[in-house]
């Protein structure tokens, strides 16, 4: 006899049932043990208490508040990191390129048009608080000079020519020597270095090799 049979026997009140129950307590439990149904009001009581619990101000509201504060702090910190990650050299490089492009686009390439370094150098006197090294560079005739401003500081722009190309050499005093750089932006080549407490930036549409020649010649010519 299986449990299903036992169930049927229960319904017919067959005396064989008792016999089966003795042999199979599992069946007895499955077919006859009471299965308690939840009181009808219990479900509603639980739903209400869940809603009360859900609306309780602790601790979710505080957690949420703490989480949003943390988020703001972390966003701010990331912003700081992001800003500090921008290389100051790159900022200078883009300023230098802008100055070079401005000088070519407008009419203001030269304040003092002269191929004579002894004319150009004195012209800066009284306009700058430093004396830019104006030199003759073999193969790159001096065209003159003008004043530039970078980040609120005055700088000398020395202008040299090579065929139809222009080389702008920017010079300004700097407290800390910066490492030498060489880069290309928008097709313009740039070289920078430090010497004698001054920072030098050379920029031109010349090819990289010729700009390198210019820099070497300028630096060697004392």
């Amino acid at each position: 006899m299986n449990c299903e049979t036992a169930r049927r026997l229960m319904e017919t009140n067959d005396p064989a049932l008792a016999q089966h129950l003795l042999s199979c307590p599992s069946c007895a439990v499955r077919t006859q043990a009471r299965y308690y149904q939840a009181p009808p009001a219990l479900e509603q009581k639980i739903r209400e208490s869940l809603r009360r619990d859900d609306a309780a101000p602790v601790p979710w509201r505080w957690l949420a508040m703490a989480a949003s504060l943390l988020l703001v702090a972390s966003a701010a910190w990331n912003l700081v990191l992001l800003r500090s990650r921008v290389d100051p050299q790159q900022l200078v490089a883009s300023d230098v390129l802008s100055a070079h492009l401005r000088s070519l686009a407008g009419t203001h390439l030269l304040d003092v048009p002269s191929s004579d370094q002894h004319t150009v150098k004195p012209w800066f006197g009284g306009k700058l608080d430093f004396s830019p090294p104006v030199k003759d560079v073999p193969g790159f005739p001096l065209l003159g000079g003008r004043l530039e401003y970078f980040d609120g500081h005055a700088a000398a722009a020395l202008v040299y020519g090579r065929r139809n190309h222009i080389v702008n050499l920017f010079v300004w005093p700097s407290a800390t020597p910066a490492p030498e750089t060489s880069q290309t932006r928008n097709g313009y080549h740039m070289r920078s270095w430090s010497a004698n407490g001054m920072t030098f930036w050379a920029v031109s549409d010349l090819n990289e090799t010729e700009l390198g020649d210019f820099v070497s010649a300028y630096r060697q010519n004392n």
Partner: protein
Amino acid sequence: MDSARKLALFEQSVMPHLNAAYNLARWLTRTGPDAEDLVQEAYLRAFRSFETFQGQDARAWLLAVVRNTCFTWLRKKGDQPTIEFDERMHGVADESPSAESILLNQAALGSLNGCLEALPLEFREAIVLRELEGLSYKEISDIARVPVGTVMSRLARARKRLQQCLEAALR
């Protein structure tokens, strides 16, 4: 998970097992009002730890919470030595052991619930989960936090006791 969604999801997955929860609590505590309070408490506990529910069987998960809530309460109450089955309390009434089959069946029904109620707590737990809820040995071992082997031996001993109890009642 936002709270409105959590509540909806909880009610949808856990509320359908209210009868199973109540039945277990009722068999473990053996009193209706206590079972009702404990089920309500268990639902709150389950709701608060709903994040730990990861889509396994919601009924088994809920029954584990109910079981723990009941055991904690029973332990605190301190009256756990299970009442041994008392034949005079639960046995067949004096009217004829050799009675009509109807009476015999009635007696069997009556004494079965009494026998089950008289089982030690851990045996009762195993029997209810196995025979009334149809849970697997593994699920019961997770809920009762004992090895599967222990579940099997508890079930075997519980069945033996039930059988003895029934025999005594039907004789």
